[in-house]
């Protein structure tokens, strides 16, 4: 069975729905407090995918995701290693990582995304929305068709809620931008209902450069995104479900946020069978 590890604690708060998403997809789910990794109760290497759910780790203080990333980089675990070392081993073993919203912010702070040089230096940042406020609204995300990450298989356009105050993606410099494009690391971009990528507010809710909503690393194993697919596990979460229903246009499972979790669990199952 595919084993999915979900970290929580310190203000992370989307672990329940993320757990539900993986359960629906047929994975075995373990939700633990981050300190249970630090104190050695759980071993990351026992799992197939590591998840950083959304929330407000340390209240977004200093910068969103910063204090948590700091803990992962510097805090020594019971075995004397830091958690980032464990993560590096995990990825080197072909395992997967997903970060949503605050989880995405943590992954960028850690330099795991986009990690163009392989040295885990932050190359993108997620800054305060241009609207200068936290906003909850539904957006459309266009999947970059040339991105080969298994998370995205078969998806073209996905409606999803965004709920953040710091989601404006900026590049360190133009070089980073060009490489991310060249490597096909852009995963998701904000778009209109027809799937045209747009920078127009509020379709692009935060002012992200190139309307980027999600990235993968160079291997496609690490995926981070600002929107919350785990809050859209049922057609009935969609704000227009009632009208769609009236007009006989109910969405299929593959058209909800569940598809991302179905995709990755399916991929991991195939890999397990192979190995």
């Amino acid at each position, binding site marked *: 069975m595919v084993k999915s590890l979900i970290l*929580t*604690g*310190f*203000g992370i*708060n*989307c672990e*329940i*729905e993320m757990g*539900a998403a993986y359960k*629906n997809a047929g994975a075995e789910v373990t939700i633990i407090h981050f*300190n*249970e990794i630090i*104190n050695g109760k759980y071993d990351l290497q026992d799992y197939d995918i590591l998840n950083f759910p959304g*929330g*407000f780790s*340390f*209240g*977004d*203080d*200093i*910068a969103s995701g*910063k*204090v948590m990333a*700091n*803990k992962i*980089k*510097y*805090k*020594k675990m019971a075995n004397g290693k830091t958690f980032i070392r464990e993560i590096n081993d995990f990825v080197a073993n072909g395992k997967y990582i997903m970060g949503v919203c605050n989880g995405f912010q943590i992954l960028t702070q850690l330099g795991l995304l986009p990690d163009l040089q392989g040295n885990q230096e*932050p190359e993108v*940042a997620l*800054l*305060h*929305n*241009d*609207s*200068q*406020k*936290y*906003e*909850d*609204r*539904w957006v459309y995300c266009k999947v970059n068709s040339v991105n080969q990450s298994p998370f995205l298989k078969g998806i073209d356009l996905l409606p999803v809620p965004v*709920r953040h105050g710091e989601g404006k993606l*900026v590049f*360190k410099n133009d070089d980073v931008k060009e490489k991310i494009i060249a490597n096909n690391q852009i995963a998701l971009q904000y778009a209109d209902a027809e799937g045209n990528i747009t920078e127009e507010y509020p379709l692009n809710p935060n*002012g992200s450069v190139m309307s980027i909503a999600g990235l993968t690393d160079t291997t496609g194993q690490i995926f981070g995104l600002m929107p*919350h697919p785990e*809050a*859209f*596990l*049922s057609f*009935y*979460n969609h*704000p*227009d479900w*009632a*009208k769609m229903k*009236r*007009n006989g246009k109910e969405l299929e499972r593959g058209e909800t946020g569940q598809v991302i979790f179905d995709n990755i669990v399916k991929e991991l199952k195939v890999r397990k069978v192979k190995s």
Partner: protein
Amino acid sequence: MFQIQTILRHGYKDTKALQLQKKIKAQLGIDTGKIKTSKLYVVDYPIRQDELKAYAEKCLQNAFTEQVFINRFYDEATYRSMIAVAQLPGVTDDVGMSAQMALADYLNRDIDWNVQHIYTQDIYYFERDLPADVLQEIARAFLGNPLIHHIQTVRKTVSGFDFTPYVPKVEMTTDEKVEVINLNGLTDDELLALSNERILALNLEEMQTIRGYFARPEIRAERLAKGLPEQPTDVELEVFAQTWSEHCKHKEFNALIDYTDKDTGEKKQINSLFKTYIKASTDVVQEHLLAKDNKWLIKVFTDNAGTVRATKDKLFVWKVETHNSPSALDPYGGAITGILGVNRDIMGTGIGGAEMLFNTNVLCFGSPDYDKKLLAGQLHPRRIMEGVVAGIEDGGNKSGIPTVNGSVVFDDRFAGKPLVFCGTGGLMPDNYQGRNSWEKPIDAGDRILMAGGRVGKDGIHGATFSSVEINEKSPMSAVQIGSPITQKKLADFMMIATRRGLIKSSTDNGAGGLSSSVGELAEIPNGAVVFLDKIPLKYSGLKPWEIFVSESQERMTLVVEPDKEAELLELAEEMEVEVTDIGYFTNSGYLDVRYKDKIVNYLDLNFLHNGVPQKKMIAEWKKPDLKEPEAIDVDNYHKVLQDLMASLNIRSRENIIRRYDHEVKGKSIIKPLMGERGTSPQDAGVMRIDHESFEGIAISNGICPQYGDIDAYEMSAGAFDEAVRQIIAVGGELPNMRRNDDIFWTVNDNFSVPDSFYHPENNPDGKEKLAKLVQMNEALYDMATFFDIPMTSGKDSMKNDFKREGVKISVPPTIVYSMVAKIRDVRRTLTSDFKAEGDLIYQVGKTYDELGASEFYKLFDELGANVPKVRKQEAKDTYLKMMQANKENLLVSAHDISNGGMAVALSECLIGTDFGADISLDELGDLPLNAKLFSESHSRFVVSVAPENREKFEEIMQDKAIFLGKVTGDKRLKVVDNREGIIDEGIEELENKWKTKF
């Protein structure tokens, strides 16, 4: 001490600065030039220079987007004046604590995170050289609140900014002294003066009763034997004051009221509003429920929150309460503490550890465009609104609790004190390791543990609140600021500990602090011993009584069996929650509090809880002499409809709603705004209970204080009906309709009224206000028992007056009914927006000529006399028919009719859609046109139905549904009356009016 400053590099948009610049220009008319924001950290911890540098660059500086300055202040030629905003001593500094966590992690050093080593402040640089008074004005309007912030303004000199950061370190000398206060021989005036000086808020009779207690021979003997002074200690007087406070004992809701109706001469006596109306109504409802084998009402009034059965193995717990006074002083802190405080009520119900499902809130403010002169200490309503909304935002979002439903009401009588109602619902398994989760068992020998934050001077006398002189170096005491992250850790811990069976009972620490939480729990086994010197403090220097009554936030009191203590403490350490053993329960009959081996409080529990003398109050009622205005002749209904859509109490709340997370947990089905563009306003909120089934709940709030200006009874009944009809509108079902049913309803009633205690000079109309309160209660009883919808919890806030400079601003008597009802299948619920061209539009329910206190009359500065009346039987018949129609899948949309009447409801059904409507008013019968369009009669809906279902629908509804017209595709609202065109209006124009910003 070291100093680290971070600042955004050139080339990145400083959005906070840009917004501030815009706001200062718009609201104060001041041109500041460019603004730059920055964060300053003062590090008060021994650390090497190289470590400091590495820490600053790696842990505080945001990658490539920020610059960092170490022990050097950013000072660029462009900026010529600045403001620095720091916390006052003792005020929560979450960023500082997070920075400290980062330091501990970086150095891998064990730094006590309960002692503050890093202090943060915000710096704002301004391009223009602004004079000190202008800087002060800006700071007070947008950046800080002198009650909690230290504000420095600096102008540049030739040598740059002469700026030394303020460090809010708490410095106090230890003062452990326990005073003995001799009450003997004091005159009445002296007793009252003592109560005032010590902010005890006890009246003369109460002071005399306390004196009487200490004079009792058996008490004197007991005290002598225990080595206590004969007269009370300061701890004991404080414990009385907290326990007997209005906040804790609800003295006015339990008062003996003499009521006279001056119109009829009829007199009656009411022995406790609470018992006579609220509790009695629930007793009657429970009787009705049990008669039909409906056993879902589990626990009411006796715990922090009411409890009902939600599913076969889960309970629903929920509480709504007010946080008005703190929100008037510090809107952000007041609101966030309100939300976090009510969260703790859920966490501490029964054994405790409920999982929080949602937050809801109702907010009442003065107009954001209020233009009267502000009184001393009065904050502008816009400032209050912005602060409160930000507090609700952080309180919910940072705790990961969706804010699913709410309401905002504007009336200038809320310009002194706003009303802030915060509510939380949660789920609890019905048993923990074989124990009934809703019960609160405590036995002698069980340990008392305090969990969460530490104790400081914050919020001392919150329950008996009054303002005291604030010393520059003394921590701020009246105002508390919640820390959602501290509380989230505590909530996560409680959830796990209760499920493992490690906690036997729990309660929260709110008003009155430990003195209330332990004092109340001690009633169960009949005794407790508390060691004040074991309680962890934020800083030294607290007196024993202060430790006991402090209202420092984010604390729970836990009851733990001795053999479970070690395991609980281990879990707490792992989850980084401080838990301390502070005493144990006994069956001695006494609340025994010690400080360093000395008993400092020894009070008979029975007397402490039951000895408060009953208050006596007088109510007198005379019906106001009100008349309907002359018929209002409207020549342009377009204009009237547009004005209504833009009016403060109708226009869109989108700017507020979007700032609340209503999706977290992934269970929301009907959110506040729905439809293709997510802009169509909805009635009740609907969410799933879990991810496994489609069982759900609907959440609504009813509030309409405006009708109270005509009739307080009908106002209260109307608010009740509004909450019910919102739930019916989304597809909910009335309770107790069949035997052995699981459709539960649970209500929190919240009264917020002006001072209703008669005083010839200070409150000459107190008797009339009290009469209104009685009438509101009568309506509550009548509605609840008629619909079998029980009150399960609630609160009363009795003194909502703002008095300064000889002016009194009093709120209108207000009641909020917050309701939750079970939904069998959320997939069968209904949203309000029209959904297909050709669908038929009906009004459900009857319109009466009831324009009294309507939004329509308000446009013409009229009050009128015909207040909307609730006709209970008619309402119930309508609701049953709505339920039947939905059961048969006949309804496509439903929207309740309230402020602005049918015309506004109809317009709202079109907002955010691509549709229009062709409407004829002919079938509404023989009514004045203004009433047809704008009357606010209760128990009505606008619904749409697919054309093929016309016959079936009309057969079910009979005379309850009145055909209005059809949904069209032309995006226009067209209304005819007697074949005469009244309105022909583009939806886009209406929508633009509706979206008028605050």
